[in-house]
C-alpha cells in the first residue's frame, strides 16, 4: 500500500488483501508505474522457456518449443503442463546441472 505501512501480522494480511483488490494483473513488458509482483524470469538469467528476452524480442531464445516447459518445472508458478517431478519424472533435470550449458539434455517425456 502506498499510504500505510503494516506493523503487525493482521496489518500485513490487510495489506495483502488491499493489494489484491486495488492492483491489476499486468504484462511483463508493460513498463507502467505498477510493476509485476512475479516473476523476474529470463530477463535476468538464462532460463530456457520464456517467450521474450529483456529487450522484448526473441533473439536470446533459441530453444525448441519442448524446452519451454523447463522453467515452469524448476522455479515457476505458471500452471503449465510440466513433467511430474514428484512421481514419474523425478530425474528429468538430473542431466541439466547448468541450464546455460546443459539445456540440450532436457528430453521430451513420453507417457
Amino acid at each position, binding site marked *: 500500500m502506498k499510504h500505510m505501512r503494516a*506493523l*503487525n501480522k493482521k496489518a500485513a494480511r490487510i495489506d495483502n488483501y488491499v493489494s489484491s*483488490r486495488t492492483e491489476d494483473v499486468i504484462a511483463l513488458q508493460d513498463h507502467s508505474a505498477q510493476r509485476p509482483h512475479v516473476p523476474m524470469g529470463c530477463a535476468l538469467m538464462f532460463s530456457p522457456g520464456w517467450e521474450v528476452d529483456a529487450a522484448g524480442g526473441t533473439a536470446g531464445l533459441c530453444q525448441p518449443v519442448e524446452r519451454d516447459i523447463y522453467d515452469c518445472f524448476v522455479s515457476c508458478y505458471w500452471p503449465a503442463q510440466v513433467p511430474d517431478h514428484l512421481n514419474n519424472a523425478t530425474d528429468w533435470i538430473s542431466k541439466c546441472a547448468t541450464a546455460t550449458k546443459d539445456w540440450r539434455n532436457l528430453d521430451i517425456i513420453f507417457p
Partner: protein
Amino acid sequence: MTLATEPRVYRLGEFHRFESQDSEFLYLVPAGAIFAVDEAVAKLIATLSAGELEHQHLVDALTASGLSISDAEELISEMYHAGVIAASDSIREQTQPLPDVFPIQTLVMNLTNQCNLSCQYCYEFGADKVATPEGKPKFMDLPTAKASVDFLLAQSGDRRAIHITFFGGETLMNFPLLKEVVTYANEKAKEQGRNIDFSLTTNATLLTPAIIQFLSENHIGVTVSMDGPKEMHDQLRVFANGKGSYDIIEPKVRALIENHRTRPITARVTLTSGVSDVIRIFRHLKQDLGFHEVGFAPVTSSPNQLYSIGQKGMDGMLEQFHVLADEYLEYAVRGEAHGFSNVSDTLAELCQGVNKSHPCGAGLGLLGVGPSGDLAPCHRFVDSDQHALGHISTGIDREKQADFLQRGHIDSKYDCHTCWARPLCAGGCHHEAFVRYGDTGHPNLHYCDWIRDWTNKCLEIYGAIAVRNPGFLQQFAERKAAQ
C-alpha cells in the same frame, strides 16, 4: 450490459488514532491491525471527520488540499478496502461461531486448596471467595492427578505443545504429587511424540535447595507471588498469626533465581490500597532480587474491601505504569530486555493483532482442575460448585461450558461494542466480573478508562519500537497458540 450503481458515500471506519515519535498510526479496531500512515491519510480522515461525503465530493476535497486526482482516487480505494473508511456496501465482519470442540492447551492443576499463608486479599479464602471447598478433598491424590494428565492429552487434539500449570492453595504443599505428575506426564507425552511443559505459582515459603534443583532440572517455569520490599509485602502476605512472610521467602527467592537457570523466573505482584508504589516494587524485585520479569495486577475484590485499590489508586498505578513503559521503550531501542511484563505481554498481543472473542482462554483452551477432580473454567473458579464445568472422570459438561462461553463472548457484552480497546480486553477477567457484578459475562466497567489508557500507551510503545528498532518486535512474532 451496463449496471448503473449509486456513487459510494464514505464515512470513517472504526479505528483508534495514535501518535508516537512524531509519526502517525492507526489501530484498526475490528481487525486489530496496526499501520503507520502518511499525511495523505491524515488529510482523508480530517476531511471525513466533518461528516459523510459522496465519492466525487471526497475526491474534490482531497484535490483541493493538494493531491492529484489519480492520487486521491488511489488513496480512497486503498483506505476503503483496508476499512479505514467505510461505505454502505462495506462488508460487516460476521462473528464466527465457536468451534464445537476446542482443543485444550493448558490445564491448571490445583494440587491442593490448602495454604500456609493467610493473605487477606486471597480470592480463594478471602471475603470475596467463590470456592466452596467444604467436604471436598484438600489435597489432590495420584489417581486424580494421572487422570488429569490423561484428560489433557486426550482433549488437546493435535496440539504439539501443551502445558500444565501447578497451582494451589500453596502448590508446594503437595510437592510429592507434583514430582510424580511431572514424571508421569513426561512419559505419556513422550509416548505420543508431543511436548509438554510445566510451570507453577508459589508463595516461595516452602522452597528448598532440593526443590529448586528439581524445578531447574525439569525446566519448570516459576512464578512467585510477591508484593515488593518487606514493608509492602508484609502488609497482606502474612501467616495465620499475622507475621509477614518476607523474611522467610527473601533468601529462598534469591536461591531460586541463583540456581534455577533453565526458565525465566517471574514475580507476580498484587496491588492493593496500601501497596501501590509500583516503581519501588519493580526496582526491588527486578534489581535487588533479580527476577527476570515482574508483572502487576490490581487486586480482585468487591468495591468496599479495605484493601481494594479504588479509582485514585488506579490512577496512581497508571501513572507509574507509564514511567516504567517509557523505560521499557528505552531498553527496547537498545535491544535489551526490561522485565516489565505488563508491557511485553501486551506487545505480544499487539504484534499478533489479536481480536478476542473472549478475554482469555478460560473454559476454551484452558481449564482448571481441583483436588477433587472437578473441572473449572480456570484456577480462580476451582472448587466452586456454581462454576464447575464437569469432572475429570466424566469429562467436560458441554452444556455448562457453552453457557459460560456464551456469557463471556464479546457479542454478549453490549457495553464493549463501541470501545476501540475491545480486541485486547474483550470485557476483562470472568472472575473479576463475577466478584464485582455477580455474572462472569458482565463487562468489567470499573476499569474501562484504565484499560483504554494503558492499551493506548502500549500502542505508542509499539509504534515507537517499530520506528526505532523494528527488529525487537520479532521476538513477539511467534504465535503461542499456533504451536
